[in-house]
Structure formats: structure tokens, C-alpha cells
């Protein structure tokens, strides 16, 4: 079988020595982690390796010899290197030698106990140690879900990545250290010495504790019995601002917890939440500064009442149109007048209520606008709630129209069954035949006729108000879509993918380097970064709303029957 040797590109110019790394026998591949230079004492090397093995749980051993000679190959050196093979017994013993500045190295193996004398082919794969150590391999989603596979079955590449990542402690030894063993491997250029970063790290622990304390206080207040009484709890559940604030509170709790992140996913999630909160608050403060400059919020409050008046006037015009002959259709005069007058009176009440509130609007809006500093999402939720409050009369009209229409439809269907001599059996949930008395049939038929001829009027009112309600629902839905986008976008992961693309790896790619006959095949292994779509899909933050509740067909069916529709439902609400 082909022997694969993964060689770190930083060791290409190292002095002669022995190679240490991990041998993966089931894949016939050797992952070389470092080169130990002469002079060394074999016993000390073995001790050091067993210690490393104990700490990192990676079976590190001596794999072979490396000779980097500036002159021609010396015979004595090669014999010496072969003798080393007997001291550190490893099967197979890999010998790599580089002459002068040549790119093409010769690689051979010594097998003592092999039964096939055939020369096996060797592939030399160069890899960048730092990038492989820092990167996180993302398996394709299909294989990630199956967790019943042993580590042996793991793909070859994830074994290589694992080995390098777990041997991080091996790379901590500095080349200038005076120890019994001199290693060459990837070296970091030094720990960051930025004062600000160090101060922030020191300050983060007490800050986290303070934040946790404050948050527990706030959540304690929120959960207290005072706020759970019926009118208030109903109000909280209907306002989307409270949902959003609760969601952000949860996020803050996740960030300020004292436990360190266990694995990569948790770390990325914390980082994403932190960056998302930061950007949200920054955008909110920007919005607030724009609103309060030149007293724009005063202007906004001043235009609010005229806009509400204008909407009410438009509605009155619409009702006058419906009470006449809308679109050339002929309505039932009496029912038309009754319904029209009823809705007109409702609008009149609404306008009086708005005018009652008008002196306080500016002050309320001024203080409510201050809460935009909690984040842009909160400001958008407040906007959505204000729209809901201002169009409350449209919602009321829709409910009245829908209930009337629904009643009519049910009445019609039941009387239609009576017309045909059938009845709905509630016990058996099916239609059964039934013999009616003559007077029952007579009255039933009369009522059926009346309801049937009144249907177009009611249906028209229902249609108009449903369309208006759907318009408002669409506007609110768009705002909530934007809020969800800001909530769930993993900004930290996207920035990481942009700046340090090797950290998020979808796989690897190989590039064939120059070849020479007789020398092993040379390949360069590079990291293939994850695509932006997969980054967003893997790391998106969960949100609190799920949409839409109904499919298109069930929505149409509900509209036809006159049942009330609530297209946007929040998770956690009882399903009715």
C-alpha cells in the first residue's frame, strides 16, 4: 500500500535529526510534528515523548530520520541513521534526506519484519502546521448527524487535523530554550503583549460576575407575581417588544456565564452573540442620535396625529363607498346601512380616543425613543407595536367582519344540508340523513334563502377588511423579518471567514508540485475554506419566532371559511 508522509513545511530547512510524530497504521500514513536535532540522549527523548503522550493523549513516537546535508551524501551518516532505527524501533522506519538546496528529497523506508519485499510508493504531503493546528474541520452535514461511528472510521483528514490540533503543547517549547532536547517545529512569534488586551482579560471576570448579578436581579423582578396578573400578562404576551427584550436578556445571560466554552461550537456561539449585541446597540445609538438631533422626534410626534386622522378619513370614505353601489354591485340596502353605520360609529369613537391622547403623544414618544439605545431590534419592535396600536380599529373591523361572515357560512352550510334532507352528526363526525317535519323544512328553507341573498353584502365587507388587515400584517411581518435577520446573523463567523479563512475549513485541496523521476510524489495540502452559505447555515443563532404557522392551502381555506388568521406565531405560545 502507498505510504503517505505529512511533512510540515516549516521543517524544510531544519538541521539533521530524527522525526517525531504520529503513525496511523490503518491508513498507512505518518504525520510528522517536529524534528529532534543532534546531539540527544535516546533515553531522554523517550522520556519526553512519553510525557507528551500522557498530556496530549496522542501517541507520539519517533518515526524516522531526517538528514539535511549541504554536501554530498556521506556514507557514514547514512549508516549512523540506520543504526538509530534499531534504537528507536519503529515499523516502518522512514528516512528522508535532502541534498543541498534541492527541492526533490529522497525518501525510503526500512521494513524489518515485512513479508513483501516490493518497494512501496511514498507520497510526500507538505502542510502548513500553524493553519492546520488552528483550523476547525466542518464535516458535511450528512455525516455530521450520524454519531455512531468509531474514531477508527473517521476520515483520514480529520485524523491528521486532530493530531496536529491536540499536539498544541508540543509546539509551546521555544527553540531558544536550553533543554536536553532541541526541536524544530512551528514557532509562534511571541505571546501578545498588548496592555489593553491583558487589562481586558483581567477585567472580564469581575465584569462577568457583576453582569450575572444584575441579570439575575432583573429576571427575578420579571418573574415576580406582581407582573403575572391577568391584564398585564396578556399585554406582555401581545407586545413584541417584551419578547425581544426577553430574548436579548437570555443572550446576555449566555455571555456572562462564568463557565468557559467547552468546544468550538459553544465558543463560536458566544462570540456571535457578543458581536451581534454590540452591533445592535451601536446601530441603536446611531439611530437615537439621528432621531434626537434637530428634534426629529418632535416632528415625528407632530405628524402622527394627522396621519391617524388621515387613515380614519380614508376609512370613512371607503365605508361611504361600500354603502353606495361599490364597483357597480347592488347591495342589500338595509343591511348595508346597518353595517356601514355601525363601522362609522366605531371610527368616530377611535378618532375621539386619538384626539384625547394627542397632548401626551409627544412626551410618550420622546421617552419611548430613548429605549432605542437598547438596540436597533428593540426600536424596530417598538415601531411594529406602534403600527399595531394605531391600526387597532382595522383589526377590530376585521374581527367583526370575519365573525359575521363565519356565522353566515356555517348557517348556510347547515341549512343547505337541511335543504337536501341531511344532518351533521356530531357524535359520529359525519353527515347523516334525517327526516324533518314540514314546519322545520319550511322555516329552514326561508332562512336559507334570506342568508343566501344577504351573502354578497357580508362577503364584500369581509373581503375589504381582510385585505386591509393583511396589508397591516405584511408590514408588521417585514419588520419582524428584519429583526430576526439582525438577531440570527452570525457576524463573528462571517468576519472570521473573511479575515482568517483557514480557521473554518470545509476540507482540503491538494496541489501537485514539481516532480522528478525516481523521487516520491510531492503534494501541497492547503485548506479549503467553508463557503459563506454554509457558514451562515452552521452558525446561525436560534430565534424565538417560527413562521409561518399555516401552509398556503390551509391559509386560503381559513380565509374562505371566515376563521380568524394569525399568521405570525411565537414559539412558546399555546397552539390553539
Amino acid at each position, binding site marked *: *500500500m502507498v505510504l503517505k508522509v505529512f511533512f510540515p513545511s516549516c521543517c524544510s530547512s531544519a538541521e539533521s535529526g530524527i522525526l517525531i510524530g504520529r503513525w496511523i497504521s490503518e491508513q498507512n500514513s505518518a504525520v510528522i510534528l517536529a524534528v529532534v536535532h543532534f546531539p540527544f540522549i535516546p533515553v531522554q527523548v523517550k522520556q519526553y515523548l512519553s510525557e507528551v503522550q500522557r498530556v496530549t493523549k496522542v501517541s507520539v513516537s519517533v518515526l524516522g530520520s531526517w538528514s539535511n546535508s549541504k554536501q554530498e551524501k556521506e556514507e557514514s551518516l547514512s549508516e549512523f541513521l540506520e543504526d538509530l532505527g534499531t534504537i528507536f524501533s519503529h515499523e516502518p522506519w522512514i528516512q528522508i534526506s535532502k541534498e543541498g538546496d534541492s527541492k526533490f528529497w529522497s525518501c525510503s523506508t526500512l521494513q524489518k519484519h515485512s513479508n513483501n519485499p516490493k518497494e512501496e*510508493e511514498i507520497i510526500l504531503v507538505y502542510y502548513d502546521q500553524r493553519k492546520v493546528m488552528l483550523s476547525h474541520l466542518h464535516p458535511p452535514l450528512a455525516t455530521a448527524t450520524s454519531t455512531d461511528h468509531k474514531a477508527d472510521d473517521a*476520515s483520514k483528514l480529520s485524523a491528521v487535523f486532530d493530531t496536529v490540533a491536540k499536539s498544541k503543547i508540543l509546539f509551546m517549547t521555544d527553540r531558544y530554550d536550553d533543554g536536553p532536547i532541541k526541536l524544530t517545529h512551528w514557532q509562534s512569534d511571541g505571546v501578545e503583549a498588548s496592555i489593553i488586551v491583558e487589562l481586558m482579560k483581567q477585567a472580564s471576570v469581575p465584569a462577568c460576575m457583576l453582569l450575572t448579578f444584575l441579570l439575575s436581579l432583573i429576571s427575578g423582578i420579571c418573574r415576580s407575581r406582581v407582573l403575572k396578573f391577568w391584564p398585564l400578562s396578556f399585554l406582555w404576551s401581545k407586545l413584541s417588544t417584551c419578547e425581544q427584550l426577553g430574548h436579548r436578556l437570555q443572550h446576555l445571560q449566555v455571555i456572562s456565564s462564568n463557565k468557559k466554552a467547552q468546544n468550538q461550537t459553544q465558543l463560536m456561539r458566544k462570540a456571535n452573540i457578543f458581536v451581534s449585541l454590540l452591533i445592535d446597540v451601536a446601530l441603536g445609538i446611531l439611530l437615537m442620535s439621528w432621531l434626537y438631533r434637530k428634534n426629529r422626534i418632535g416632528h415625528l410626534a407632530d405628524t402622527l396625529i394627522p396621519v391617524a386622522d388621515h387613515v380614519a378619513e380614508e376609512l370613512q370614505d371607503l365605508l361611504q363607498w361600500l354603502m353606495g353601489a361599490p364597483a357597480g354591485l347592488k347591495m342589500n340596502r338595509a343591511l348595508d346601512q346597518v353595517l356601514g353605520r355601525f363601522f362609522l360609529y366605531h371610527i368616530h369613537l377611535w378618532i375621539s380616543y386619538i384626539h384625547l391622547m394627542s397632548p401626551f403623544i409627544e412626551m410618550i414618544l420622546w421617552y419611548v425613543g430613548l429605549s432605542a439605545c437598547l438596540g436597533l431590534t428593540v426600536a424596530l419592535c417598538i415601531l411594529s407595536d406602534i403600527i399595531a396600536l394605531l391600526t387597532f380599529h382595522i383589526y377590530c373591523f376585521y374581527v367583526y367582519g370575519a365573525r359575521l361572515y363565519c356565522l353566515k357560512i356555517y348557517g348556510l352550510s347547515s341549512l343547505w344540508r337541511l335543504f337536501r334532507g341531511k344532518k351533521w352528526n356530531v357524535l359520529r363526525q359525519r353527515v347523516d340523513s334525517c327526516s324533518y317535519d314540514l314546519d322545520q323544512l319550511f322555516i329552514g328553507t326561508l332562512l336559507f334563502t334570506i342568508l343566501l341573498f344577504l351573502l354578497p353584502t357580508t362577503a364584500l365587507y369581509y373581503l375589504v377588511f381582510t385585505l386591509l388587515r393583511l396589508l397591516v400584517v405584511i408590514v408588521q411581518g417585514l419588520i419582524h423579518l428584519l429583526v430576526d435577520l439582525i438577531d440570527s446573523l452570525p457576524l463573528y463567523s462571517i468576519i472570521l471567514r473573511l479575515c482568517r479563512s483557514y480557521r473554518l475549513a470545509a476540507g482540503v485541496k*491538494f496541489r*501537485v508540485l514539481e516532480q522528478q523521476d525516481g523521487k516520491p510524489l510531492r*503534494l501541497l495540502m492547503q485548506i479549503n475554506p467553508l463557503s459563506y452559505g454554509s457558514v451562515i447555515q452552521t452558525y446561525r443563532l436560534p430565534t424565538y419566532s417560527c413562521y409561518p404557522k399555516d401552509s398556503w392551502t390551509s391559509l386560503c381555506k381559513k380565509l374562505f371559511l371566515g376563521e380568524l388568521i394569525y399568521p405570525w406565531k411565537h414559539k412558546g405560545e399555546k397552539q390553539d
Partner: protein
Amino acid sequence: MGERRYRSASGAPVALRRRQHSASCRELAVRCPRLQLRSLSAVTSAVWLAAYGLFVLSENSMVLSAAIFITLFGLIIYLHFVKVDQESLLVIGSLGIQVTSSYASGRESTTFIEMGQVKDVVINEAIHMQKVIYYLCILLQDPGDPQGVSEVVPLFQSSKPRLDCLIEVYKSCQEILEQRKTAPQSSGIK
């Protein structure tokens, strides 16, 4: 190994280049026909004529500048995301198969499939528009079921070479894939 000319399924000329890097490593690259100057000028003239017609109707000069921007933008997007220059297959025995598409703007999109996941490389038939064409594909092993196929990865989707070219590529791949079956100690069964 040199370059040989073949035809694609739609009749355009494609070229296959085979290189053997070592006994177990082969690279097969299919070069697609380049972007033709006459089709580019035809599309540009059509867009600009339409924009000029709109300008004459609406007397708004923004239409003309918008048409220029659309043409430029559309060309850049086409060259960067759509137009494939070369598709290549790198088969490294006992490591895996690497599929690369190079676009006209220089961008390369690579996928590497490990040898443990590859079940076989076969030539399949498919109905494409109004024709039945042959295409080469890699069958991926289903981890749970040794006889099953979990996914089919089609190759050379932009160049769509004809059967004679596909047979050459198929033979090259199979020579390397056979080596793993004759290997004395193969992984997987422990």
C-alpha cells in the same frame, strides 16, 4: 501526455489533457471553449438597442447610463460565477479524488473526496433538455450500507464532453482505482 481534441454534447470543441505525475497520481483536465467575441457583442448591442429605444420613449438619460452599468456588471458576474474555463480531475490513489472548476475570472472552486468515501467512478446516461447525454460521475459510499450509494457527484458539468472523451477519462480513473482493491492490507475491516 499531450492534449487531444474532442467535442462536447452541443458540438463545441473541447480539449482533454492528461498528465501522469506518478504511478498512482493522474490529472485529467477538460478545457471548455472560450467566450466568443461575437456572442458578447451581440448581447451588448441588443441591450444597448433596447436601452436606446426606452430612452427615445421616455426622454430620460438615466436609462442609457443604467444600461451601461448593467452590461458591465452582468459581464463581471458572468465571468466570475458562470463561465467555466477548465474542469479538472486529480486522482491520487489511496488519498482521494479532487474535482476543480476554474472560472474565466481566475476563481477556482475545489472539492476533495477521500478515497474511503468513493465507491466507484461510472459513466451514466441522463436526459438533458431534449437530448440524452452521457456523463461521468463518482458514486459515494453509504457509511451504513456497504452496498448502497449515498450520493452521486457528476463531473464535467459545464463542458459535457462526449462519450469518446469520457471513455478515456474513465479508463484512466479505473486504472488507479483498481490499485486500491489489489492492496494487501486495506483499511476498514478491523
